[in-house]
């Protein structure tokens, strides 16, 4: 799908264009345009032309209970992020709290989503980049056992989604207030053996990926994530940054905004001062590494992650450490699970405004809804992770290109694609494919 056009192939004379029609191994459709003049980067534009989908308008006038299932359709990879973000915002508006075994089941199904999404991206889509392999199956030929383990691990993620959510893609069992039906204890216990395999396999894969040759690039990111007292943030908590931000979920719009840019169908998220920020595995890890389990912290250390990760290419290692942790958490929750008396908390519709945020595999996904007195949706705002990361992706690209101008067009294109894949960008989510153009003029 990639095409390289060279207007002036002689790099000693200024002026060339590199154009990639579609970026492989990311979700959705996007493009990248880079203009370089006398070896100085003048412009980097990460365009998303996946059409806008108007989910927020679609929700208006519908009952509050429709939001989880409708917003889940924003993404087939991370539906739980939308279902739980919407549910938590509705519960905030309606004044109810979901806790105990129901909250544990929510964290369990979210662990399933992290496992499935992280392993698909790390092992099948991102790992081939580090081996100079154009396709995942080339990686499979060289490392059949690693790929078998990765597929089994991804399947574990799907199985957890099925056990708690009724099916692996767009689960049907989640609702505002909890679940339509809680899983039987024996059905969850049946997962224990495979979860134990998952803990071992994710550590093995993390150690294998630690041997990759990582491109030399570091950035002092503004890391924005959730923070959960006493646990690594997944589905519950407040919002923090490594620059001292510590705010309630409701206060997100006071510190962050989204803007339309001419070159993309996706909104761009920025801090109120206009600066870019990072969400996702590295941001989470940098803000919350101390909250990982001792074994996950040991694994992080063993694969060479320090207290703070500044090389975005190492996101693949953070994903595998998070996968390891998610398997450990799944084991803990399943081992301690007792079926609750009621599958959900009772809800009385009322007028209100509510906010919810969770850590989607790609970073924080923020929801806000306003309801009328019958619980119908008056307004909806959803800020997905890839919108927030877009300005930072452009900044990373500018930095990576500046360091690699000596590369030929094909190698530079490859490195740019790899840089974008560091973010596991879910472009279909952010609009609510990739085309790379490097113009040297």
């Amino acid at each position, binding site marked *: *799908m990639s095409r390289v056009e060279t207007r002036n192939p002689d790099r000693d004379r200024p002026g060339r264009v590199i154009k990639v029609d579609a970026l*492989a*191994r*990311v*979700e*959705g*459709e996007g493009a990248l345009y880079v203009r370089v003049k006398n070896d100085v980067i003048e412009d980097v534009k990460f365009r998303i032309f*996946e*059409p806008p989908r108007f989910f927020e308008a679609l929700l208006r006038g519908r009952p509050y209970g429709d939001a989880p299932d409708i917003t889940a359709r924003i993404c*087939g990879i991370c539906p739980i992020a939308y279902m739980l973000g919407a549910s938590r915002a509705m519960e905030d508006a309606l004044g109810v709290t979901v806790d105990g075994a129901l909250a544990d089941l929510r964290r369990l199904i979210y662990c399933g989503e992290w496992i499935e999404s992280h392993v*698909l991206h790390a092992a*099948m*889509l991102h790992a081939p980049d580090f081996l100079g392999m154009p*396709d*995942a*199956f080339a990686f*499979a*030929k060289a490392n*059949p056992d690693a*790929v*078998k383990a990765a*597929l089994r691990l*991804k*399947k574990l993620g799907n199985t957890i989604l099925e056990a708690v959510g009724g099916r692996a*893609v767009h689960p049907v069992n989640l609702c505002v207030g909890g679940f339509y039906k809680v899983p039987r204890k024996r059905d969850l216990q049946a997962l224990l053996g495979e979860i134990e395999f998952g803990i071992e396999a994710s550590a093995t894969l993390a150690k294998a990926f630690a041997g990759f040759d990582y491109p030399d690039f570091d950035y002092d990111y503004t890391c924005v994530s959730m923070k959960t007292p006493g646990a690594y943030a997944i589905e519950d908590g407040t919002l923090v940054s490594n620059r001292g931000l510590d705010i309630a979920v409701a206060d997100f719009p006071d510190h962050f905004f989204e803007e339309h840019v001419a070159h993309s169908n996706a909104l761009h998220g920025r801090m109120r001062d206009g600066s870019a920020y990072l969400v996702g595995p590295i941001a989470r890890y940098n803000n919350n590494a101390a909250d990982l389990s001792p074994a996950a912290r040991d694994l992080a250390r063993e694969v060479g992650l320090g207290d703070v990760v500044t090389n975005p290419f190492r996101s693949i290692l953070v994903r595998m450490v998070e996968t390891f942790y998610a398997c450990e958490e799944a084991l803990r929750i399943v081992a301690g699970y007792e079926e609750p008396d009621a599958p959900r908390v009772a809800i009385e519709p009322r007028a209100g405004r509510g906010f919810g945020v969770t850590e989607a595999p790609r970073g924080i996904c923020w929801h806000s809804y306003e309801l009328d007195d019958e619980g119908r949706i008056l307004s909806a705002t959803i800020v997905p992770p890839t919108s927030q990361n877009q300005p930072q992706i452009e900044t990373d690209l500018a930095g990576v290109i500046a360091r690699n101008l000596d590369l030929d067009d094909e190698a530079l294109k490859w490195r740019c694609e790899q840089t974008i894949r560091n973010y596991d960008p879910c*472009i*279909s989510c952010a609009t609510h*494919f990739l085309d790379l153009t490097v113009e040297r003029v």
Partner: protein
Amino acid sequence: MRIIGIGNRLRGDDAAGPLVAERLAALDLGLEVIELDGDGTRLLETLEGAADVIVIDAMRSGAAPGTIRRFDAASETLPAGAFHYSSHAFGVAEAIETARAIDTLPANLTIYGIEGAGFDFGAPLDAAVERAIDALVAAIRLELSSPSAAAASPAANSSPASTAR
């Protein structure tokens, strides 16, 4: 026999795979018919444990719309570009080649590709693709009743002109 129709019914000619699968299911031949969206890892899982599998998917190879191509996975490598239309970039060709690499390829795996004209949301089926669907359903039915008929079938590796009538 497991029949796997791949594609998105809402995206124009991408519906070709699911439509062929649905038509074969309706023939009541005792087939195990499965519809998938094109995510390669799901296809890998769906190939597991089956000895005889037919996969039908839309193609974007640059051939004339309605062109049918038949691949025998046991004896040939799939051209990655032809099936690489999906936003799910770990696609059908990658899944089948990965299955070969990790030794989980079914003993008999036939892949039929139907060249699509357009893949826009909400777009109708192209007329040539519609005729190709008819032709391929008939060809697979013939293949199932008499396996040696497959290669000789006029629909296998046909151009749209030969399937037009």
